[in-house]
């Protein structure tokens, strides 16, 4: 039985076994490669997506779990890099190697969706799920503060 769900506002279908990590379905079946593979264990956040408006590690989510649900990836956050978090990311020149940044942006967008004016401690707590090996953390904080102000 194929699994049906919505991704970035469009209907999608996967023939992968139910237990397949959503991450690989997104990347290799649906060819949405903005969502990254970093660790496969829910510890780095490179694979972060939104499921029904809540952030989730797509590497730990089985594709069977999203049947009938709505998934948003970095490609669906906006079609033109116009989401306030993306704009703030550019304004603060956050990315370096960039590999973790889709996941960082999805985590940040999730934070602001639930808490539009987070204080610094809340930002740090929420974003510590995501590893950036280039150490862009100081800029991520600034970008989230900017997005909160400008949104």
């Amino acid at each position, binding site marked *: 039985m194929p699994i049906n769900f919505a991704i970035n506002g469009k209907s999608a279908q996967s023939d992968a076994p139910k237990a397949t*990590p959503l991450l690989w379905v997104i990347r290799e079946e649906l060819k949405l490669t903005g969502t990254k593979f970093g660790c496969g264990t829910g510890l780095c956040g490179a694979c972060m997506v939104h499921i029904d408006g809540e952030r989730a590690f797509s590497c730990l989510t089985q594709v069977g779990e999203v049947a009938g649900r709505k998934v948003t990836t970095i490609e669906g956050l906006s079609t033109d890099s116009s989401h306030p978090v993306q704009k703030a990311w550019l304004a603060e*020149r956050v990315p*370096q190697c960039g590999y973790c940044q889709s996941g960082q942006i999805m985590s940040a967008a999730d934070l602001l969706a639930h808490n539009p004016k987070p204080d610094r401690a809340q930002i740090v707590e929420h974003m510590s799920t995501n590893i950036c090996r280039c150490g862009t953390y100081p800029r991520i904080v600034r970008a989230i503060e900017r997005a909160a102000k400008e949104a």
Partner: protein
Amino acid sequence: MTEVHRNALRKVPRKTDINRRHFMVGAAGLTFAVASGLRAAAAARGEVAVNPWVTISTDDTVAIISPAAEMGQGSLTSLPLILAEELDADWAKVRVVVAPPNDALYKNPQYGYLYTAGSNAVTSYFNELRQFGAQVRKVLLANAAEHWQVPVAELATEPNVVVHAKSGRRLTYGEIAAFAQIPAQAPTVAESELKHPDKFRLIGHDVVRVDMPGKINGTAQYAIDVQVPGMLYGAVLRAPVEGAAPDKIDDAKAKAIAGVVRIVPLPYGVGVVAQTPWAAFDAKDALKVTWTRTGKGWGFDSEKALPQFAAAARDMSRPTKLWAKTGDAPAALATAATVIEADYRNDLVYHAQMEPLNAVASVAANGEACELWSGVQSKSIAVTVAASALNIAPDKIAYHDMLLGGGFGRRGHRDEEYVHDAVVLSNAVKKPVKMMWTREDDFHNGRFNPLSAHFLRAGFDASGKLIAFHHRKACDEVTAFQDPVRFARQKGRDGIAYNGLDAPYYDVPNRLAEAVPQDTGLRTSSLRGIAHLTNIFAIESFMDELARKRGVDPSDFRRDLVKGNARAVHIIETVKRMADWGKKRDGSALGFTYMNYSGTQIALIAEVGVDRKSGALSVPNVWVALDPGITVQPNNILAQTESSIIYGTGFALSERITTVDGVVQQSGFYDYYVPRMRDVPQTHIELVATDNHPTGVGQMATPLVAPAIANAVAELTGVRLRHTPMTPERVKQALG
């Protein structure tokens, strides 16, 4: 706003482009001779290729080659920007084109091949790029002068425009491209004809990095993102120890997994090709392999070995390799009024680049050609690796250069073994294969910053002057493993392990630095900070100890040793002012460090608190002042410095690989801790731009963090920490 060609990062030049570029390089170096036929072809496309680095189109676009690998450090932008400066190009009209893997044209002048490492891309290419840009500008001026029949001296340029002020006439570079004649010989450009730094419009002025827009919307392309029609997926179980081979392979369970296409026995492991990534990973996990005990690393226990390294470093009867010598340190030590000794240790460290290593290869059905996608620090090595694996000529490899999801020294080994994995798996099935390591593979196949033990001695004369410095380091010879070609070329001198061992910038009349080479058989590598990472932990910790034992302020002690260098003194004074060095803190203390890293002057102060109960160190603030000469992209230098502070924080406090019987014991972010947002200090950075030749910025703060923390702990508690990482357990033990 920067214009980037959408496919700039994936562009593979057409055959004619490559030929034309080849043609333009003469025996004496760059020439401007262009074969008429090829020239006509370029003209037909509305382009004029002025030299192998620049193509100007009649639509006024200026395409500039960028030769460095982009792994987050920003060279993709900084290098063409240097050329654009002297060309007086309009940056909005510049299109950055990734260099093809052609060493003859695009080699890093320091290494002699396309290799991005050592934070030296800007340093190394700077003069050439300015020359090339200035030459092209001269050609454009000469063509305009000829066109208008005016003396060239009456002409000037504005961005992308040649101007004749007398007559008010203007020609865009694109308009000139339509009729330009390219001289057979490149015009010479004297040093005096280059722009004075006061006149820079691009250098020193931030532009948006060309790779940045794609990195906020998921379109930036890494090798792992490549999609090729008909592509299969590969995984490889590599031997746990270098030099071991599969002895018995039980692949029954692996073969039974749905979607598995082929099990591929390899000399160093077992490969799997499958229809999906999950089938490939599951099958790899289902393999049962016993390994031959060949390979030197078996039996190596890193924790047991480190005390032996420390004993070797202290044992003066051990054979050594001389690294550097000034004066006669042993004699000076023998007669010194005071001798102080200390030792320091460092554990193995993992790169943890965010993108697990991978590559995509598509070997032709007849095995005689291959298309390759990879993110590497040396693309010419990637091509060589693929060609040698298939026993075909390098020109049969169609190479696609991809962004790197982090490098940190891991992706520049002479064998680029993950590229090899992809090629041999594709060759086994003659289909495109995306070969991916899992994070666990990336750990188990890791190549680590080596285990090291340091022994240092200092001698003071009766007046209290530091007269002798002796540093011995017991450590694997990293270059021998990482790059045997370079190791041979350097006649066995191992810069990756020993650079900076003698602290040559400190004014000490007698200095001796010696390698006490070890041979563990472990897989070792350069890591961010390279040799300085561990050498400076030892040196800057030791300098702090010396100052304290002499009762001198640790910052004054260093300043006195660099007092002949105004830039160094300025940087030391700057960081002291930033951190309010003299001020006592409540419950925390400051630690000072300085270094001259490949010409970059840098000083760093860390503020540290200690939780005596748990042993956990907190680092609320880090201040850095640095002078890297000309600052090509200041905001990016700040980003690189923030980045290198945070990388150094992980090295200092938590990152630690161990081996038992030669086998790596860590497997993921669950048993190897890298800094998260909650762990990092507030960073305060002052960038001092000077008119000196630009020097490195990509990793300069990293080596100073650990010694600054240790020095702060000494200030706060009187206890000296001598072993990285300074984990809570170790701190607790040291505090007693």
